[in-house]
């Protein structure tokens, strides 16, 4: 099978074209560094099937970070290389085209965002550009699918030429200044700029990176996002999911509970404990009750709400601007502004957050960012439960939990920055223009994120419930609880049985938080436990990704920091929250 590589600068839309060619979903956003590892799929063009590879964006073939290295390493394995360019930014993008031509790879140029360029008054003479470059040039719009057929035809036709060995156009090696001079000349001849007045989006663009105005705007965006996530999440729960579970599903379970009355163990496993003869979905701890209710009716609505807001922010192109605004602050905790993006992704799930740190330049920065994410950034599964458990006492208390975790990140970051030796590279970040999110693309991404949650979370939650029941049956808990009691009770002020939820946090944070309910904790205890679930050991998925990204040595270091900060900050949280609630 012939291999087709999609390469190009960051944020030019390679993943959108990949999705169009292969029909496979690839996450598309409007910021540089969405794709950090390569992704492969198949495209059937005519009678032939091609292997299509989506690569992380790179500004040049000389790599400067892990994600860019992936692309550089892959380059020679492609039978056909498609260089994707951003038509609104032709000059900068052509540098890589020149490097590819110098390397003599069989090249097709895909001129993406061609519609955007026309809207902006940038007219490109495509046949002329092809003539100068001596390779096929195809205008495309990845998001809408425009031009993808032409691109596919070019690939098929090109494949034959590659076989005949006449598809290789190589040019002489240029010096850097020669390259820019040549590019300048080509652009001057094929591109025609028309003067346009500033649009509303462009004005908003400038306002939202302005030092003072931008910060005010960021606070506004944050508050609105918080309110929207809460409103959608709670709305879905109270209007859709609770009625379905309580009204339609519960009667079935009640009947099942009756038939299982003669088989206590099975009843215990599937339905769980009855509270006053009734099924309480949160407390029952049966696989068919709590095991389904927690992920589907408590967490999924928030997953949907959170990722809807995040996807819109990603697609508009807001995240890099936050990075610029917070760069000075991030320097104080050993990272630069780009780290804001992995941290925000970590708020959804720590795993993609930690993966996104691949776009950072140094190992030191990646270590600090990954550690801080797994300690101080609660994933949306945990947040949904905190909203329910703590939020029932008043939303203000939820805000305190967030504020405490934010403070932990700042303090711990400042300490790590001093403890770990190394230089902090400065921020270099391309700020993409604001773009209106494509409805189809945003919905797609949301769908895949929700599906990912259902596939990954439900089996683990069910396993967790099963484990809790088995351990409960064997009676091993009393022993564990007595061993860990000094820390759990003396330092954190929690009942010693709280070790069960905290330990279960290793499997899933949501089911762990659910296990707090039967303990009937006071408000400050609930808040402390919520903080501890984030601070302490990461869940198994996060643990696996830390291990593969940092290596075992640094993972051990990172875990040491987690355990230590859980003990120290957990104790602090207890004191603070007790004072707050009294």
């Amino acid at each position, binding site marked *: 099978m012939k291999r087709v590589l999609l390469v190009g600068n960051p944020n030019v839309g390679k993943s959108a074209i990949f999705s169009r060619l292969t029909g496979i979903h690839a996450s598309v956003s409007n910021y540089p560094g969405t794709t950090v590892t390569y992704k492969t799929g198949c495209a059937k063009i005519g009678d032939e099937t091609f292997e299509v590879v989506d690569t992380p964006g790179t*500004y040049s073939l000389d790599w400067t970070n892990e994600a860019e290295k992936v692309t550089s390493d892959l380059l020679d394995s492609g039978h056909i290389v498609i260089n994707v360019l951003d038509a609104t930014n032709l000059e900068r993008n052509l540098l890589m085209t020149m490097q590819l031509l110098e390397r003599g790879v069989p090249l097709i140029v895909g001129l993406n965002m061609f519609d955007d360029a026309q809207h902006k008054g940038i007219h490109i003479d495509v046949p002329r550009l092809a003539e100068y470059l001596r390779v096929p040039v195809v205008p495309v719009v990845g998001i809408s699918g425009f031009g993808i057929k032409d691109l596919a035809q070019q690939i098929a036709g090109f494949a034959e030429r590659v076989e005949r060995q006449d598809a290789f156009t190589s040019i002489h090696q240029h010096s*850097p200044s020669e390259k820019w001079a040549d590019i300048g000349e080509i652009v001057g001849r094929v591109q025609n700029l028309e003067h346009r007045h500033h649009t509303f989006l462009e004005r908003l663009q400038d306002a939202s990176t302005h030092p003072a105005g931008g910060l005010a705007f960021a606070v506004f965006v944050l508050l609105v996002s918080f309110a929207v996530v809460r409103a959608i999440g709670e709305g879905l729960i109270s209007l859709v999911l609770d009625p379905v579970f309580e009204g339609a599903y519960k009667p079935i379970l009640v009947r099942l509970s009756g038939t299982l009355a003669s088989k206590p163990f099975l009843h215990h496993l599937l339905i769980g404990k009855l509270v006053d003869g009734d099924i309480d979905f949160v407390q029952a701890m049966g696989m068919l009750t709590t095991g389904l209710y927690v992920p589907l009716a408590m967490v999924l609505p928030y997953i949907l709400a959170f990722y809807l807001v995040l996807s819109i922010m990603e697609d508009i192109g807001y995240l890099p601007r936050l990075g*610029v605004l917070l760069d000075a602050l991030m320097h104080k905790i050993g990272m630069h502004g780009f780290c804001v993006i992995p941290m925000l992704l970590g708020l959804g799930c720590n795993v993609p957050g930690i993966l996104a740190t691949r776009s950072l330049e140094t190992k030191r920065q990646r270590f600090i960012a990954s550690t801080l994410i797994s300690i101080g950034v609660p994933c949306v599964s945990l947040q949904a439960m905190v909203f329910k458990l703590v939020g029932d006492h008043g939303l203000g208390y939820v805000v305190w939990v967030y504020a405490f975790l934010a403070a932990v990140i700042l303090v711990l970051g400042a300490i790590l920055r001093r403890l770990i030796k190394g230089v902090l590279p400065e921020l270099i970040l391309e700020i993409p*223009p604001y773009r209106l999110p494509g409805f189809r693309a945003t919905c797609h991404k949301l769908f895949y994120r929700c599906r990912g949650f259902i596939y990954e979370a439900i089996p683990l939650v069910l396993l967790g419930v099963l484990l809790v029941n088995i351990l409960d049956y064997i009676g091993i808990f009393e022993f564990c609880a007595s061993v860990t009691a000094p820390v759990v009770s003396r330092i954190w002020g929690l009942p010693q049985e709280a070790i069960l939820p905290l330990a279960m946090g290793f499997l899933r944070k949501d089911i762990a938080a659910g296990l707090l309910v039967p303990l009937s904790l006071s408000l400050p205890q609930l808040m402390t436990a919520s903080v501890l679930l984030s601070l302490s050991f990461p869940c198994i998925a996060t643990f696996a990704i830390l291990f593969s990204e940092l290596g075992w040595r640094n993972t051990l270091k990172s875990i040491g920091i987690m355990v230590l900060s859980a003990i120290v900050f957990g104790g602090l949280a207890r004191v603070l929250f007790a004072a707050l609630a009294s």
Partner: protein
Amino acid sequence: MTLLTCDSGKPYRVIALAGGQHFQLRLRNLGLAEGKLVVKTAKHPFGGPVTIRVEQTELALGHGMAERIVLEEAQ
């Protein structure tokens, strides 16, 4: 004059990138090469980044980097 000290909103021409090879390479790859016209759009306080526009690209550069980009006024 450097990118750090120049005025915002006025066009300047890049005359030198005063740094190591790696530094120069990264900036050139982003389109910030000698001879290009740049406009500073904002300078963030507390040692924060400087944002600039080069052709159609908007870039954010760390404080220390901005200090090493030497400019002259463009006619």
